[in-house]
């Protein structure tokens, strides 16, 4: 048991009962968001650096050519990976990705995949044989809570900035041939439940104090992914309210995507 963490948890719980958050935000308020695209201009085909408060995520998109999956011969391939690199937090350790990194990558992946953000059907070079593979790699640089939303933002922004290289004589030539074909913009919104309160975009201290977590990913009118986390529970009405909030928050954040 970590005494410090217990005290913080207690303190945050009492604040929340008073309707307050440790950083003064409203329960439905996100932290300040800053997005910078093309931060890895010379090596990545797309990239973005996102700050969500003090949480910092760098996402790089690499394009490569490979074989399609046998069951989708006329579609490109997308893969999402996440590394909780140990520079980001004293809790992270070097080594193979643990269950937190895997869950993070998979939730971000589902939002992008299920919203059909990337038009995978336009990434076919030769059906059944050669397609473009889109590698989305998330590098967490500073962890101050809510990695999922910061990572979705970074991935979406990196994809928006990404381009397709040329492919000649069975070789990838890293010069721009076209923009990556993008349609919808999925965004995720993560809520922490602390006692009976629901807080959008928890900082790390709030994550230590939360009973349960719910992420909802939408492209504006439709829902594409959800993930409940931690050992607490939600009531159905709470989930419905969270969905409502998500749709209205989407409009705000969407404006920041270029």
């Amino acid at each position, binding site marked *: *048991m970590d005494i410090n963490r217990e005290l913080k948890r207690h303190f945050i719980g009492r604040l929340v009962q008073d309707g307050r958050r440790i950083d003064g935000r409203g329960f439905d308020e996100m932290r300040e968001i800053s997005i910078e695209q093309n931060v890895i201009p010379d090596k990545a085909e797309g990239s973005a650096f996102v700050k969500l408060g003090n949480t910092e995520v760098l996402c790089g998109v690499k394009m490569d050519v490979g074989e399609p999956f046998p*069951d*989708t011969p006329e579609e490109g391939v997308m893969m999402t990976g996440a590394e909780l690199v140990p520079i980001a937090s004293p809790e992270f350790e070097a080594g193979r990705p643990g*269950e937190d990194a*895997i*869950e993070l*990558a*998979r939730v971000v992946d*589902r939002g992008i*995949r*299920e*919203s059909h953000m990337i038009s995978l059907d336009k990434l076919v070079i030769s059906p059944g044989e050669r397609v473009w593979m889109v590698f989305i790699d998330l590098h967490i640089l500073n962890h101050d809570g809510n990695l999922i939303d910061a990572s979705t933002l970074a991935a979406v922004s990196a994809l928006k900035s990404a381009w397709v290289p040329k492919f000649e004589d069975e070789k990838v030539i890293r010069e721009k041939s076209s923009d990556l074909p993008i349609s919808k913009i999925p965004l995720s919104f993560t809520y922490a439940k602390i006692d009976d309160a629901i807080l959008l975009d928890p900082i790390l201290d709030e994550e230590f104090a939360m009973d349960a977590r*719910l992420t909802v990913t939408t492209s504006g*009118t*439709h*829902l*594409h*992914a*959800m*993930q*409940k*986390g*931690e*050992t*607490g*529970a*939600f*009531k*159905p009405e709470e*989930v*419905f309210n969270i*969905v*409502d909030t998500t*749709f209205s928050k989407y409009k705000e954040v969407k404006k920041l995507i270029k």
Partner: protein
Amino acid sequence: MGGKSSTPLIVKGKRLDGRKPEELRPIKIEAGVLNRADGSCYVEWGKNKVIAAVYGPRELHPKHLQDNTQAVLRCRYNMAPFSVDDRKRPGPDRRSVEISKVIREALERVVFLNYFPTSAIDVFMEVLQADAGTRCAALTAASVALADAGVPMRDLVAGCAAGKVDGTVVLDLMQEEDNYGEGDLPLGYIPSKDEIVLLQMDGDFTKDEFKTALNYAIKGAKKIYALQKEALKRKYTTNKETAKWI
């Protein structure tokens, strides 16, 4: 969700296996099927065959993994190599790591872990045949296996999924519906408390469709819950040491 199907999945309100949208597949739950485990449960759910075993509370090694305020719950969801169409390589993959995590978090809500500081409670789930909805079947089985092991619990967790197929919200997707459908929403639910402890979703739902789907899944979970209780009752009234299952 996978690709598009060339043929309709719902014809005249009936699904490929003849079910109505709000109908569950046939389900059989059997508690106490394994001789060596402290608790166990076999669930047959449509063509899914899942078995769960519980060991513990037992000593946790090595010591530095122990928590001196409560038991550590460890969950492993695993698919047998022959449980799917194309042989699965043995060992955990990213999908099974994620499923093991969300199932563990769902079960931690109901197990009185604080009764057993420094101990481990191990929940192992083996998918022997998979036909969509294995995580709900595994959670359902795990929950009964914990009760069968006599692990003190607040209540049982019931698993059930809803989905969307051909634009229609339906209960409990089977494999063809999962492959070619438009959405899946697996739920872990505690009926007595109206609590959602596992919730995932992927696909494409409007707000209304989502609401309908969640309500369907809740109704389904309540039926599963009744079957779980029956299975435990049957186990305690018959006096056999281990039930016949497969």
